């Protein structure tokens, strides 16, 4: 079920969600592009460790995004050097069970408010990880927003203890395309 949902929403995202990105992303770690500095502030970013996990190919990045401006801005994408495929995910209830799916169209950061990316809720999904992520590693993330701005965030890898294991249960489907990550 989860797998099929991820696939479905990935395909939907490919159809409708990437249009807001102003310019193709350069690879992570390159010289900062000409895109505007983002008004969004990221706080308390972290990535869940994969060491010891049954599926070390994917994990979640979490943080609090603050929009101090007067215009609603949406988080529409992200990229990282540690994974070729990154999606913005949300959790929805399907047949009484919480499953994750790509948040098509991104996620709004309300004016003067916060968007909490957290376990069991919105998160940045890092897929097809190139290597396991251990506690204490640092993950560079580039967040992309609906106003065309970008934000570089360095997120520490931390242990994760929540009982329900949302972020390891699905594996990427061969039908998934990394093109929605922009990397």
């Amino acid at each position, binding site marked *: 079920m989860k797998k099929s949902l991820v696939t479905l929403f990935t395909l939907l995202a490919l159809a409708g969600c990437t249009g807001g990105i102003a310019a193709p992303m350069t690879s992570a770690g390159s010289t900062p592009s000409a895109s505007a500095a983002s008004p969004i502030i990221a706080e*308390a970013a*972290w990535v869940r460790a994969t060491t010891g996990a049954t599926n070390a190919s994917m994990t979640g990045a979490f943080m609090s995004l603050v929009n101090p401006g007067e215009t609603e801005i949406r988080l529409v994408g992200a990229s990282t050097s540690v994974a070729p495929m990154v999606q913005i995910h949300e959790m929805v209830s399907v047949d009484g069970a919480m499953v994750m799916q790509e948040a098509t169209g991104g996620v709004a950061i309300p004016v003067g408010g916060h968007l909490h990316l957290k376990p069991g809720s919105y998160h940045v999904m890092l897929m097809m990880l190139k290597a396991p992520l251990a506690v*204490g590693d640092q993950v560079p993330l580039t967040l992309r927003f609906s106003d065309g701005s970008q*934000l*570089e965030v360095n997120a520490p890898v931390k*242990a994760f203890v929540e009982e329900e294991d949302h972020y390891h249960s699905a594996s990427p489907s061969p039908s998934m395309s990394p093109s929605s990550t922009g990397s």
Partner: protein
Amino acid sequence: MTGATAEPAGLGRRAVLGSSAAVGGLAVGSTLGWFGGQAGSPAAPVTPEAVIRQRYSPHELHQAGISTPTPAVTRLLSFRLRTPRVAAELTKLLRLWSGDIEALMAGAPIPGDTAPDMAQAGVSLSVTVGLGPRVFELPGLASRRPSGYVEVPAMAHDRLQDRWSGGDVLAIVAADDPTTVAYASRRLERDAATFATLAWVQGGSWRGTDSAGQPVTGRNLFGQLDGTANPSGADLEAVVWASGPAWFAGGTTLVVRRIELDLDFWDATTRERQEKVIGRRLDSGAPLTGSHERDDLDLTALDAAGRPLIALDAHARRAHPSVNGGRRILRRGLNYTHTEGGHRGVVPSAGLVFLSFQADLANQYLPLQTSLDQRDALHDWTATIGSAVFAIPPGFGPGDWLARGLFEP
């Protein structure tokens, strides 16, 4: 602690930088700007700082929890590294902790906090981190060891126990209330667990305010005012803060001593003798040759019979800078009571977790302690049962991490 806790340059910086809690989107220039701010800060007048409901920032030249007032509750957590020969393991821990400390001291949940609702601002929370001697045995770090940062050899009067001694990494967590200290300690323990195990945990309480909430010198469990002679203002700067090596500028060194107090024997001692042992009055803390707490000792004054008013073995005389080549330290006390139960019954004990901060441990603390070990009337009532030393790095800029300059010069 009133005089000792004034922090002339810190007030301005706190006002400028204290609200920054962001860890994301950091510009390369942020660290430079922070250090630039240090140099440009005008010195504020020396004024006593309020004790309770304070907000401290880790982004000062110095870490908080040293010259800031001692709040009601302090816990020290000493860790041993699981892989003490791999610097990368320690730097991962320090980076994780730096993000945690930034959030905790701002009253915000740490990244990945599993109890985020516990975070609260305005509870005088400070986290102070130190590095034990083994850190400087890591490859390449020996040359960056702070000057005079050495182990304290066991003194003749010491009764040291391993369970209160040593450690590779220290976190001192202090706040207005025990719940905050428990929460912050737990978060730091969790993030340290991958890299280190607890060597010991000890702590205690302090009452640094009077009945009206005004800052006063606190009392240890002997009832003595403790910290009266602490340096303040420019003296404090010279006594406490190291100027080098480069990564350590603004840092200091710490000696932790767990001193057991024989309260039963003290109770059985007459008040006159209690005052003679220390050389000060118990009520006001004034020297036996003066009338106010802050009066300096008159070490030459004699009574009618020609004996020194402040006895030759009185603690205040033996610790006085004038008989120690001008050497001084900043002391910070924590009162503890410790009860162990067993099939033979309950065994209570009590004492002082004594923290000594100084720029140069070998040239300030060691001669003082050696002299006191040789002669100090207090020895009849005290026994040091734990000892540890730590190098306390300076503060760190927003988004930077503790002691980075040690590993990435």
